[in-house]
C-alpha cells in the first residue's frame, strides 16, 4: 500500500480533500446568495426598486434548483455508475405525491365542498380516506413517506432487475415501462390520488400559508441548501472506496466481477440513493409549483432528466447543475416566446449533444482548458 500511496499517479480513495479551497468558496457564495441575498431582495426590498426580485423569479429558480437536484441524483446512477434510467420521473413524482398527501390534508375544510376529504374524494363519493392515506396529516409521517415511497420502489425494482443482471438498453427500457405503468395507475381516479388532475390548491404547510412570500422564501432557501447537500454528498460518495467501485462498474463490470466484487449491492445502493434524492427533490418541488399530477411520470419527462445530465456533462460534479439550468432556462424562454419551436429545439439538443458534445458542456470546457495548458 505504501508504495502505491507514494506513487504520484495514485491516491488512496477517500484520502484526497473533499473539495479544494476554490470550490468551498463557490459553495459558500452560492449559499449566501440563495439563503440571504435573494430572500432579502424578495422580501425586504420594495417592489418599486430595480433590485427587487419577483415572486415569479423565486418560483422559477426554486423549480430549476429542484431539477438540478434531480440531475445530481441522475448523474450518480448514469454519470458515475453507467446505468441509464429512463424512469427517474417516477421517483420524483412519488416524493411529490407523498408530500402532496400531507398538503392535501392541510387544506382541511377550506376546499370547495368544505369537507375534511379532498375535493376529488368528495367527487368520487368516498366517505373516508383509504388506508394508505392514514397518518399523512402528520408532517413527519409525510417526510418518512417521501423517503420510503421512492426508496422502497427503487429497492425492490432494482433488486430484481440487477439480480438477473439486466443492464444497458434493456434496463433503460424496463425503467421506462415502470414509469409508464405508474403513470397509468395514477391517471385512474380509483387509485385515490386525484386522477389526471392530481393534487393542487394547497393552502398551508406547517400552519403557514403557502402563498405567503415568507413561506416561499423559506422553501427557496431550503431547496438551495438541499441542492448543495446533494452535491457534497455525491462528491463524498464518488471520492470514497464505494465510489471507485461504482465507476469500475461503469467502465468494466466484468473485470470488476473477476476481481471478486459482487456489483449487485453497489448498484442497488446507488440506485436506491439516487431514487431517494429524487423523491426529496419532488417533495420540495410540489409546494413551490403548487401542483403534482401524473404527467410528471410520463416517459418524456424522465428522458428529459437524462438530457439535462448529458448536456451538462456526465460524470462531472457540476455538469448536472449546468445542464439542468441551461435546458430548463431555455425551456421557460422558448415556451413563452416560441412555444411551437420548443420541441424542435429539444429534439436537436438531444441529437447534437450526443453527436458533438459527448462529455457535455463541462467536459468540453475542461478539454479546452487542458488543450490550452
Amino acid at each position, binding site marked *: 500500500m505504501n508504495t502505491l500511496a507514494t506513487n504520484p499517479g495514485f491516491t488512496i480513495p477517500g484520502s484526497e480533500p473533499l473539495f479544494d479551497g476554490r470550490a468551498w468558496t463557490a459553495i459558500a457564495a452560492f449559499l449566501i446568495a440563495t439563503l440571504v441575498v435573494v430572500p432579502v431582495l424578495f422580501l425586504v426590498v420594495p417592489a418599486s426598486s430595480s433590485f427587487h426580485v419577483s415572486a415569479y423569479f423565486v418560483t422559477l429558480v426554486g423549480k430549476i434548483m429542484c431539477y438540478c437536484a434531480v440531475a445530481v441524483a441522475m448523474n450518480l446512477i*448514469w454519470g458515475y455508475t453507467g446505468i*441509464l434510467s*429512463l424512469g427517474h420521473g417516477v421517483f420524483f413524482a412519488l416524493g411529490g405525491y407523498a408530500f402532496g398527501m400531507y398538503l392535501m390534508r392541510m387544506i382541511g375544510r377550506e376546499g370547495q365542498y368544505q369537507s375534511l376529504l379532498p375535493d376529488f374524494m368528495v367527487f368520487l363519493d368516498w366517505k373516508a380516506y383509504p388506508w394508505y392515506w392514514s397518518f399523512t396529516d402528520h408532517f413527519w409521517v409525510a417526510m418518512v413517506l417521501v423517503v420510503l415511497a421512492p426508496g422502497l420502489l427503487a429497492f425492490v*425494482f432494482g433488486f*430484481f*432487475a440487477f*439480480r*438477473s*443482471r*439486466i443492464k*444497458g*438498453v*434493456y434496463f*433503460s*427500457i*424496463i425503467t*421506462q*415501462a*415502470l414509469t*409508464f*405503468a405508474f403513470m*397509468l*395507475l395514477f*391517471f*385512474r381516479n380509483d387509485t385515490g390520488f386525484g386522477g389526471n388532475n392530481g393534487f393542487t390548491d394547497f393552502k398551508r404547510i406547517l400552519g403557514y400559508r403557502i402563498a405567503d412570500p415568507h413561506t416561499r422564501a423559506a422553501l427557496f432557501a431550503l431547496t438551495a441548501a438541499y441542492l448543495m447537500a446533494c452535491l457534497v454528498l455525491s462528491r463524498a460518495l464518488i471520492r470514497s472506496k464505494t465510489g471507485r467501485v461504482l465507476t469500475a462498474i461503469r467502465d*468494466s463490470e*466484468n473485470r470488476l466481477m473477476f476481481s471478486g466484487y459482487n456489483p449487485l449491492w453497489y448498484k442497488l445502493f446507488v440506485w436506491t440513493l439516487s431514487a431517494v434524492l429524487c423523491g426529496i427533490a419532488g417533495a420540495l418541488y410540489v409546494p413551490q409549483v403548487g401542483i403534482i399530477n401524473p404527467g410528471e411520470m410520463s*416517459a*418524456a419527462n424522465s*428522458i428529459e432528466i*437524462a*438530457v439535462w445530465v*448529458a448536456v451538462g456533462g456526465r460524470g462531472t460534479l457540476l455538469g448536472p447543475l449546468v445542464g439542468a439550468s441551461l435546458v430548463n432556462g431555455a425551456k421557460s424562454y422558448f415556451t413563452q416566446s416560441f412555444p*411551437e*419551436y420548443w*420541441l*424542435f429545439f*429539444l*429534439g*436537436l*439538443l*438531444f*441529437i447534437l*449533444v*450526443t*453527436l458533438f458534445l*459527448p462529455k457535455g458542456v463541462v467536459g468540453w470546457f475542461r478539454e479546452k482548458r487542458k488543450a490550452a495548458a
Partner: protein
Amino acid sequence: MPLRLATRVLIGLALVFGLCAGAGAAAIEPALLAQLTSEDAAEKGEAIDAIAAIGDEAALAVLSALRDGMLKVSGTGQMFIAERGKATDAATGAAVDPVPDDAEKVTINNRLRTRIESAIGALRIFSKDPKERLAAVATLTADEAMLPALDQALASETDPAIKSALQQVRAASQLKSSDAAKRLAAIDVLAESLDAKSKNLLLPLMEKSPAGEFAEPDEQVRQAASAAVAAIERRLAVYDYAGRVFTGLSLGSILLLVALGLAITYGLLGVINMAHGEMLMIGAYATYATQTVFRAYFPAAIDWYVVFALPVAFLVAGGIGILLERSVIRWLYGRPLETLLATWGISLFLIQLVRQLFGAQNVEVSNPTWMSGGITVVNLVLPWNRIVIIGFSMTVLLLVWLMLTRTRLGLFVRGVTQNRTMASCVGVPTGRVDMIAFGLGSGIAGLAGCALSQIGNVGPELGQSYIIDSFMVVVLGGVGQLAGTVYAALGLGVASKFLEPYLGAVPTKILILVLIIAFIQKRPQGLFALKGRSVET
C-alpha cells in the same frame, strides 16, 4: 283486450289461409281502405287488422305507406300511395296520373303505429327477399297468437338462419302457452340457442314472487328451464372465449407488425430505436396523403388507395430511416445509451415536424368499403379490418422470414447480428448492411403505420402509444430470432385480452409488466436467445 287477442288470432289464421290461397289474388276492398280515413281510432284499427289479414304484397304496401305517412286520400275519396312524385292506387296498384293536388295525408296515432308495425312484421316474414324475412323475424315479439303464422312460415322457410330465428320466436311464443308440455317443448328449443335473449326469456320462469310462489307453477318445467339456462351459458362462454382469442390475436398481430422492424434494428445494431414509433406515424400519414391524392385525382379508385399506400408508406418511412442512419445513428454505434437519447431527440423532432405540416389535430383516414363491416359467426362479429390486418401481418412476417433466411442480404444481416467483427473480416460490408437493415426496419414500421391507420386515430402522437408495448415485445422475445418476436407479440396480445375482462385495462398492463420483469429473472436474454460463448462487454 280479449277482443284484440281474438283479432290477432284471426290475423294469424287469415295470413295462413290467405297465403295458401295464393298471394296477390285479391285487390283490397275500397270500403276497407275508406275505413282507414275514419275519425274513430277503433274503426281505423279494425281496418288495419283486416288489411293485414289479407296478407299480400298490396296489403304490405298499404300498411307501410300508412306508417310512413305516404298514404293519401284525394278530394274525391280516391286512396293512393304517393312516392317521390309518383302515385299508385292503393286498391288496385295501378298508376294514378295526374297526381291529385288536393290530397290529404291519412293520419295515425302512436298506438295505431305499433299495431301497424307488428302487422307489417308478420307480413314481412312471408316476403320473397331472405334479408327482408330475417329482418322481419327480428322485429317480431313473442305472442301465442302468432303461432299459426309462425308455423306456416317455418313450413315454407328454406334458409337455415331464418329458420332457426323463426324457431326461437316460435319457442318464445310457445313459452307463454298454458299447456306445460308445450312450454317444455319450447324450453328444449331455446336451450339450443346462442342468444343471451333466450336466456333472459327463461330466467323469469325460475323467479319467486314475494309470496314464495314460483312464476312457473310446474316443477318439471322449472328444472328444464334451469338446465337450459346452464346450457346456454356454457355455449355463450365458449363463444366469449373465442371472441377474446380473436381480439387477442388481432392485438398480437398489430404488436407483431410494430415490433418486427424494431427487432431487426435492435438485433443488428444493438440500438433501440426510440423513433420507431414515429416511423409508424410517418407510415400512417403517408397513407393519409395517398388517400388525399386519390380523393383529388382518382375518386373512382378510392376503394383501392390502401393498396397503393402500402408501398408509399414503406418507401417514405424506409427512406427517412436510411437518412437518419446515415446522418445520426451510424456515428453512435457502440454507444447504445447515447443512441437511445439521440433517437428520442429524432422522435421529438419528427412529431413537431408533422404537427407543423399536418396540424396537431388527428387527420381522418377512412376504411375502404371492402374493409368495413365484418363476418358474423353465430353471435360473434369479426370486423373485416381486423381480419385483413391479421392476414397482412402474417404476410409481412413471411416476407421478412424469407428475406432473412433465403437471400444474400439476409445472410449478411444474420452474420452481422451474430458477430459483427467476424462478419466484417470475411468481407461483409457491415456499413451498408447496417444502412439497408435500418431502412428495412423503418419501412416495416411504415407498413405497420399504414395498417394502424385503418383501425385507430392518426395523429402526431400515434407512435407514442405503441412504442412501450413494442419494446416489451422485443425485451420478452429476445434478439436475433424472429420466433421470439412472434411468440412474444401474440402471447402478449392474447394474454392482455384474456386478463382485461377480469382486471380492467390498466391493472392488466401493470400486471403484464410485472410478469415480464419476473420472466426476465429466469431468462435474462428473452424467450429465444442466440447461443454463444461471448461475454457481453
